[in-house]
């Protein structure tokens, strides 16, 4: 569905579990809310992937700023 990654299902699964390492390996940094939101619509579950992606980005960002300081 998305041209951003070939591992859409593992990415969504990692976002749901909060597994940042797998999500990053599957290309979560390439996504923004507008890229991932159609997947929330298409997915049969009731997950808001936009919220999950933002939370994942925030954690990676905090990790980056902690390692640089």
């Amino acid at each position, binding site marked *: *569905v998305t041209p951003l990654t070939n591992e859409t299902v593992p990415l969504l699964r990692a976002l749901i579990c909060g597994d940042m390492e797998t999500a990053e390996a599957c290309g979560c940094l390439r996504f*923004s809310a507008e890229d991932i939101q159609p997947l929330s619509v298409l997915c049969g579950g009731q997950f808001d992937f936009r919220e999950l992606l933002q939370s994942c*980005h925030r954690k990676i960002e905090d990790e*980056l700023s902690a390692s640089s300081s």
Partner: protein
Amino acid sequence: MRTITIANGLSVSADAARPPTVVSTDQAPTPRRVSYDGQDYTMRRPQIHVGINERVEAGQVLFSDKKNECLRVLSGVSGTVASIDLGARRSLQKLVVKVDAPVDNDGYPLPESVVTGLNSTHGNDIRAALVAAGLFHPFRTWPFNKTPTPDSSPRHIFVTAMDTNPYAADARAVLDARKDYFRTGLEIISKLTEGSVYVCQAPGEPLVDPLPAKVVSIGFKGPHPCGNTGTHIQAISPVSREYVVWSIDYQEVIAIGEAASTGRFSGNRTVSVYSVLSGHQYLISSLIGADLHSQLGLSTDHSKVRYWSGNPYTGGYADYLGRFDRQVFVMGPDQHSRQPDAGLLQKARFRGSTR
């Protein structure tokens, strides 16, 4: 011009893929209220500079981010602060300004120092002028999709000049009368990076010809989401933790060019309106955050009509136009679906190898 074809994506019905037929843009009437939605701005710790019932002038700072001095949001209208809604952990939900003076279609004048800064040849002066004018926060960093911090510098800048969302406006129609401003804006933002500025557009002739130095025009062809910024960046220059690029919408580039050329900040953005009730599509020029009931001149009765601000996937029901929303759907009261056109995705079929 190089053209990149994207194979994966959603195909939508032919009706939805066709841009609005009415290309003449009408200026919408002055809104009664203007709203600034906190979720449109990527603030970590908001600082609100005004109070309830306080008088604000056009160009006055409404709120900023304590963690990022580049994020300053200015009022586009003169009026009184009607309400400030705070959310969890003192996050800003919504700030509404009640308009009490007619809004000039050409915008409000910017300080002389800002105009001088915008026309400077130094990247740092331009950046400071953009921050002072409230024109810097539309830039987004990739990864993380947030407003850049003062110390960051991008490898490249991507200008998104296309939209493949259903019922979206055609960038060529919007740009038609503003090509000079767009070119000036591109010249200014090209000084913010050592790399290139990529103008991502629909296939065909470049949107501006000749292009300024360091600016490259690239065409994208294929189903939605081939018009999304993320798709463009992935195709041209994929990002990582260390490899950071910026993106900006083409209407914001026009606003930067207009500010540098005329010395005025214009808060008008061209918005595509699609009425689910009548099937009509048209473009209007509306103020950022404007009250949609007064802008579209339709019924204010919620039992008769409701509005959806944003594209069918990421937008939502709203009374005000979102900061970065370029689409509005007029819907009836009985349409309780999650999308403006419930049949849109049912008609869509999947392409590509992922499903």
